[in-house]
């Protein structure tokens, strides 16, 4: 049972999570193929504004971001605010921390609220893998810049003469780590093999994710958390009838040989979507007749050196957790709910194994004893990314809002742990407390 300490570790003033909004997530190049990040973020903000009656109001600030971002979206969040029903004098900024973006923005605005710099905020993110930014070939780009800077016509023509047919092929964003050339799935496959995560365990986790998400929809859990968009009313990656045996029939897509356990079913697909969280002080909430669902208690980031092979790409949250637990004075078992982002089923399972492993905890985390196991019946109880899909910057907001509602239903003082890994070898963990 969680300790009864109710003050956050951030100070006397704490940020309450009042709710949020997201749009259903769609597999890329499907229902949302023509939606831009700005479209989705604006629609998500407007649905939140309608739900909480904030039309024409200025909130303290709006922080959001997108991972796959057009250069024209340099002011993405601010432009979304200007296109929304919020007062146009609401400040906004963009944040990018790969898949950690949605949670990082929550931490950032919660900190500002705790420090008394703002009284209310929206935090979240959007991502589309359909409407991808395509860049010019690097040589062509440099040639065009030279031609533009050339002072005489003759010099311009000479610059342009350097263009070759191969320069005309555009650069499409590649889903690989720049310094290793490996995709995230390929990195994860290495880690999964190291930890001996079985195919069966991954498929079982994936099936639970779908079944639990479907059950949550059926009982109306999302009725006040989601606004439909472009004809979708549910995440369209959801397969309510998923079972481990059906998932067992899929061929591996990452890794090689008999050690290859990662399939399309136990990995998240490329997805489009957006989510936003509404935070505020108790006073701001009361002034707007809103009831806090949960409080933001604390958060911690970590990063690992995956480039030189010191650690797996997606293992950073494992390092962040003990620092956070130490600060909030809790053990790993003290939580009512665990929300671990299912980048891949093997990510969750590797992380849990690491926390149970004495050598890892002693050698890598510097702890006297392992952090231990968690009660699996408290993990991702309403489904998570494998079922809902994973628009990179939208996942943090999805998890924060759902967990806040779950903690509110559980009761005052209940505690939840969030763990999210991110490309670039980073990770974020956070603790929320039911209000």
């Amino acid at each position, binding site marked *: 049972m969680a300790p009864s300490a109710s003050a956050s570790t951030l100070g006397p003033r704490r940020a309450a999570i009042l709710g949020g909004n997201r749009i259903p997530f769609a597999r890329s190049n499907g229902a949302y193929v023509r939606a831009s990040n700005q479209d989705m973020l604006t*629609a998500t903000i*407007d*649905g939140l*504004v*309608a*739900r*909480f*009656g904030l*039309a*024409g109001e200025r909130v303290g600030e709006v922080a959001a971001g997108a991972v796959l971002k057009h250069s024209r979206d340099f002011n993405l969040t601010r432009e979304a605010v200007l296109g929304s*029903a919020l007062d146009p004098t609401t400040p906004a900024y963009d944040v990018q921390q790969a898949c950690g973006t949605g949670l990082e923005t929550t931490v950032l605005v919660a900190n500002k609220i705790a420090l008394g710099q703002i009284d209310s905020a929206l935090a979240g993110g959007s991502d589309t893998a359909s409407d991808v930014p395509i860049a010019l070939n690097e040589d062509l780009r440099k040639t065009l810049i030279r031609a533009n800077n050339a002072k005489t016509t003759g010099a311009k023509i000479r610059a342009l003469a350097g263009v070759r047919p191969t320069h005309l092929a555009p650069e499409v964003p590649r889903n690989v780590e720049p310094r290793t050339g490996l995709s995230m799935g390929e990195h994860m496959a290495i880690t999964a093999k190291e930890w001996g995560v079985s195919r069966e365990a991954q498929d079982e986790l994936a099936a639970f994710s779908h079944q639990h998400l479907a059950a949550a929809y059926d009982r*109306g859990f*999302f*009725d*006040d958390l*989601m*606004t*439909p*968009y472009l004809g979708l*009313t549910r995440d369209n990656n959801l397969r309510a009838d998923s079972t481990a045996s059906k998932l067992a029939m899929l061929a591996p897509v990452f890794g090689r040989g008999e050690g290859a356990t990662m399939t399309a079913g136990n990995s998240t697909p490329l997805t489009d979507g957006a989510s936003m969280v509404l935070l505020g002080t108790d006073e701001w909430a009361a002034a707007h*007749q*809103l*009831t806090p669902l949960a409080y933001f208690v604390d958060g911690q980031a970590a990063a690992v050196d995956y480039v030189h092979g010191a650690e797996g790409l997606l293992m950073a949250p494992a390092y962040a957790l003990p620092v956070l637990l130490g600060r909030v004075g809790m053990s790993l078992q003290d939580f009512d709910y665990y929300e671990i982002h299912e980048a891949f089923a093997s990510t969750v399972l590797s992380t849990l194994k690491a926390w149970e492993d004495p050598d890892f905890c002693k050698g890598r985390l510097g702890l006297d004893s392992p952090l231990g196991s968690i009660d699996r019946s408290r993990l991702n109880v309403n489904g998570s990314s494998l079922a809902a899909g994973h628009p990179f910057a939208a996942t943090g907001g999805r998890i924060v809002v759902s967990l806040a509602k779950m903690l509110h239903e559980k009761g005052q003082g209940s505690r939840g742990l969030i763990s999210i890994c991110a490309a670039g070898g980073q990770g974020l963990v956070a603790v929320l407390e039911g209000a």
Partner: protein
Amino acid sequence: MSDTYTQFVNSPVGKQVASRLGIPRPASLRRYTRGGPLLDGSVVVGGYGDAPLAKRVTAMLDAEGISTLSEVPASGKVAAVVADLSAATSPEHLETLRAVIAPALKLLSPSGRVLVIGASPEQAGTDPALGAVRRSLEGIVRSIGKELRAGATANLVLVEDGGEPNVDATVRFVLSGRSAYVDAQVVSVGPLEQGVASEPADPARPLAGKVAVVTGAARGIGASIADVLTRDGATVVCVDMPAAGEALAVVANRNGGSALQLDVTTPDAGLRIVEHARTRHGGLDIVVHNAAITRDRLLANTDAARWHSVLEVNLLSVLRMDEAILAPGALDDGGHVVVLSSMSGIAGNRGQSSYAASKAGLIGMVEALGRDGELRRRGITVNAVAPGFIETEMTGRMPFATREMGRRINSLAQGGLPVDVAETVEWFSQDANAGVTGQVVRVCGQSMLGA
């Protein structure tokens, strides 16, 4: 979807064509704009005997700066004619009605108003002459409605014993552009349990400070109701199914209230509506039950599931929600419930047995609640609006011929607009109209269907 025929025949070219060919020219109707005058022109007011209500109407119009005449002018138009027959005791006295109204009809402005005020036939006791003269007014008004031209309407207001002080809101509604599509209707105004109906502090915003809930607010008539109630000062909670959330957010945001995504058929829908309105907005004054579905099919081909789904959404859920809404401490005393019925529930419609069952059922519910002593004591009114042919997305999808016929078989020769239904809902939501309860008013332009 829109009535291009009416638009055409009212255009400069269309006018000529229509009059040459002698084809019907439905008028462009005068509609209400906020802050606009009640009427544009003078009003002829007359009545039989003491005609106490004629005096009251004259005083009301004088206060608004509208000139009243006891006789038709030698030249020029009149915006309205009002005849008070409430003091009549025998059919001979109907001559007064003829004498007041007949000369005015030729001089009536386009979108003019004929208002007959009488006493309630139900309160005539056993006096046959009294019963006869009071009841005859309805036949007269309905016939006048079928004779009027250029968008003019005729309506009858019956005043029950003790109801006189509460009649102003209804008289204003009938004379104004808000009742553009209300024609040949009979409204009864009665007394309150205590006191008299109160006038709003700001006549341009009669619903200021009120909290209203509108179900089915994401589109169509529901969205228009949310817009009109907001225009007149209310804070509106817009309710619709989660699946309609995208459109609902748009309506809620442009009106500044809040959106509540809720399936009205869930068992606790009423409680959730009350809780949302009271905790978020500090009260609950007006509830508009507008959410409804159609599942049209000949009764001969209707199965149990299809039958049930329509009754469930349109009627059963309303009865359930009202249990929570009308419980003490939920809807504020002096509050108003308005229900959307339909011409289909009154006249029936081929293939709409289930829909008509639910819409007629709502009328029965409203009439029963109108008789409820406890609600009367709390000053709560319950009324129904029954729209006729209204230009919406739904009617826009009808086959051309059916739609053309549907919009022409009424005295105004055109379909109504969602705002016409919304204005009638708004009138039922006013505290000044507390004397009207348990009533059904059609917004149908005097449709030829049904009586």
